[in-house]
C-alpha cells in the first residue's frame, strides 16, 4: 500500500497521528485553560485569574496527600528494589539456575488488584491490624515485587554468565563479583523498573482505597473525594502544575539520552 498509494498512506498516517495526539492532549489543554477561570467551578468561562494557583499553595490537604503518596511510593520502591536485587543475588550464587523464579512472582500482575485488595484487607482484619501508612506500603511493595523481579531476573538471564565466572576466576568473592560485575550491568533495568514501580505506586488508587482509604489520604484518594463531593479549579491548577513538572522531567531525560547517543 505504501508503494501504490504513497500520498494517501502518508495523509492517513499524519491524520492518525494527529488524531491520537489530539485525543490524548485535549483534556489536558482544556484543564489548563480552565485553571485560569474566574469562577468557583470550572465551567463556563467567566474571566482570567491566577487566583486558583495562589489558592493551591494554601490548600494544605492536597499537599499533605502528595507528601503521603511520595512517602509511600519511595518506601515501596526502596523495599522492592532491595528485595529484588538480593533475590537476584541469591539466584546468581546458586550453582543451578532456578527456572521458574520469576514465574513465582507473575501472580502479582495477573491477579486483578481488586482481588488482591480484598484478600489483603481480609488478612488485616483477621489480624486486627489498623490500616494506614505501613499497610499501604506493604501492599505496594507486593505490586513492586511483581514488576521488579521478572524484569531484573530476565535481564540477568540475558547476561553473559562468563563475565561472572571470569570475575570469580580472578579471585573475587561472590559478593564482590556481584557488586562489581553484575550489578552495574543490571543498573539500567533496575532504574527503569524502579521508576515504573514509583509511578505505579504514586498513581495507585484501588489498593489505597481498600487498604488505607479512610485513615491515610494519598493523592488519588484526595482527588476521588474531590470528584465525589465537588470540584473546584484548584484541581485544574494542580494538574497543570503536575503536567508542567512531568514535562520538564521528560525534556531533561530526553535531552540527556540524546546527548549520550551523540557521544
Amino acid at each position, binding site marked *: 500500500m505504501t508503494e501504490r498509494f504513497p500520498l494517501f498512506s502518508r495523509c492517513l498516517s499524519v491524520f492518525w497521528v494527529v488524531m491520537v495526539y489530539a485525543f490524548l492532549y485535549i483534556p489536558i489543554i482544556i484543564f489548563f485553560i480552565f485553571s485560569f477561570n474566574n469562577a468557583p*467551578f470550572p465551567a463556563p468561562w467567566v474571566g482570567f485569574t491566577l487566583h486558583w494557583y495562589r489558592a493551591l499553595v494554601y490548600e494544605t490537604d492536597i499537599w499533605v496527600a502528595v507528601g503521603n503518596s511520595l512517602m509511600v511510593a519511595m518506601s515501596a520502591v526502596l523495599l522492592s528494589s532491595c528485595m529484588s536485587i538480593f533475590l537476584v543475588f541469591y539466584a546468581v550464587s546458586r550453582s543451578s539456575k532456578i527456572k521458574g523464579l520469576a514465574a513465582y512472582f507473575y501472580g502479582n500482575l495477573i491477579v486483578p488488584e481488586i482481588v488482591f485488595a480484598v484478600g489483603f484487607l481480609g488478612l488485616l482484619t483477621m489480624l*486486627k*491490624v*489498623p*490500616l494506614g*501508612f505501613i499497610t499501604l506500603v*506493604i501492599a505496594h511493595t507486593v505490586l513492586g515485587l511483581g514488576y521488579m523481579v521478572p524484569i531484573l531476573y530476565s535481564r540477568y538471564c540475558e547476561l553473559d554468565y562468563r563475565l561472572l565466572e571470569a570475575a570469580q576466576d580472578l579471585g573475587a568473592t561472590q559478593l564482590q563479583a556481584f557488586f562489581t560485575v553484575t550489578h552495574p550491568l543490571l543498573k539500567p533495568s533496575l532504574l527503569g523498573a524502579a521508576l515504573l514501580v514509583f509511578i505505579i505506586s504514586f498513581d495507585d488508587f484501588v489498593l489505597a482505597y481498600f487498604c488505607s482509604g479512610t485513615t491515610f489520604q494519598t493523592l488519588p484518594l484526595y482527588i476521588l*473525594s474531590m470528584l465525589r463531593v465537588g470540584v473546584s479549579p484548584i484541581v485544574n491548577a494542580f494538574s497543570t502544575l503536575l503536567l508542567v513538572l512531568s514535562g520538564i522531567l521528560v525534556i531533561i531525560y530526553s535531552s540527556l539520552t540524546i546527548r549520550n547517543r551523540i557521544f
Partner: protein
Amino acid sequence: MKQYIFFSWGIRCGIVVFWTFVLALLLLVPRLHFFERNSITVFTWSGVFSQAMIDEFEQETGIKVYIKYYVSNEELLVKLRATQGAGYDLVIPSDYAVKKLIYEKVLKKLDKQKINFLPSLNPLLMGHFFDPQNEYAIPFEWEIYVIGFTEAFKSLQKNMPEHLWDLIFKPSHFGSGYRIVMVNDAVEAISMATRYLYGSMTSLNETQQNAVQNLLISQRPWIEAYSSVRSDYYLGTNNVMVAMAQNAEIWRAVRDYKNIEYIVPRDTFITIEHCAIPAGSTKDDLVYLFLNFIYSKKSMQHHYDVFQYCPARIDIVNSLPATQRQKDIIVSSKKAFKHYYFMQDVLSEQKKHDVWISVKA
C-alpha cells in the same frame, strides 16, 4: 558430610524463622499507635467538619484531631462492629444507624454533666424512637429532602403535580428531555420508594419488596445519575432538570448557581446526624472539649455558612446568613415535623443488597 547437610538446613530454617518474625513485626507496628496522647480520632462523612473549624480547635486547645471518613452508614456499622467500638473517639451516625449501634452495644452513654449546650438544642430533634432519652447520641445537624429544579424545568412545566413525589417516581407526561438526579444510597432510595407506595412500614414481604424494586427500576429511563453529593453541580450546569437531594445541597446550588429554585414536599424525609461516643474510646474529656467547641454558637454559625445544613441549636437561627424561607424551615413547627418522616430500614442486609444491585444491574 551429614553434619554439613544438617547444619545447612538448620541454618536455612533459622533464617526463614528470623525473617518471618521481622515481617510479622511489621504488621504489629501500626497497632502501637504512635498517636500522641493529646489527640482524638473522629470518624465522620465529608461535609461535617470544615478544615478551618478543626484548625481553630487545634490552635485553641492544642489537641490534635484526626479525621477519618466513611461514605455510608453501612461502612460505619461494619467498621465499628469489627473493632467493637475501639479506634475512634467520636462518630457521626444518622438516626437509623444510631438505633443499630445502640443495639450492637458499641456506643458509650453520654455524660450530660459535661456538655453545656443541651438546653439550646431544638427539642423537636430530641427524644425520637431510636434513642428516646438521648442517652447515647445528641443531634448535631439535620436535613430534609427537597426537590430542586432549574429554570428550564420551570418554563417547561407550568403547574407542579399535586403529589410532588410524582416528579421523581412517575413523571410520565414530561417528555424525553426530562432528567433527574436520584439519591445514591440503598437505604434512602428503598425508603422513599416504600413510603411512596405503601406509607409507613416496618418491614416488607416478598410482593412488596418486588413492587419497590420494580418502582426503582422503572425510574431508570429518566435518571441522569445517582449521586448523593453532586446534585448541586448537576443542577447548576443544567445536566438535569430536577434533583431530589438534601436541603443543604439544594441551598448550596441556589447560592452558587443562578436560576435554581426548590420546592419542599409537604411529606418528606428527615435525617438527623448525631454525635456519639464509641464504647472503646478512652479520651472522654478530650472528646467533650471537642463537642463543646463544635456546638458553640460561633462554630455552628460557621458550619451553616459553609455547608448549609440545619443546625441543632435553635438559639442561633436569627444570626444565620439565611433567607427567611430557609429560617422558616430551620425552625419548623411541631406540625411540620409531623410530616417529616425518618428513613425506614425495612429490609434485611442481604435483601437490601439484592434489590439495590438489581436496580443497577
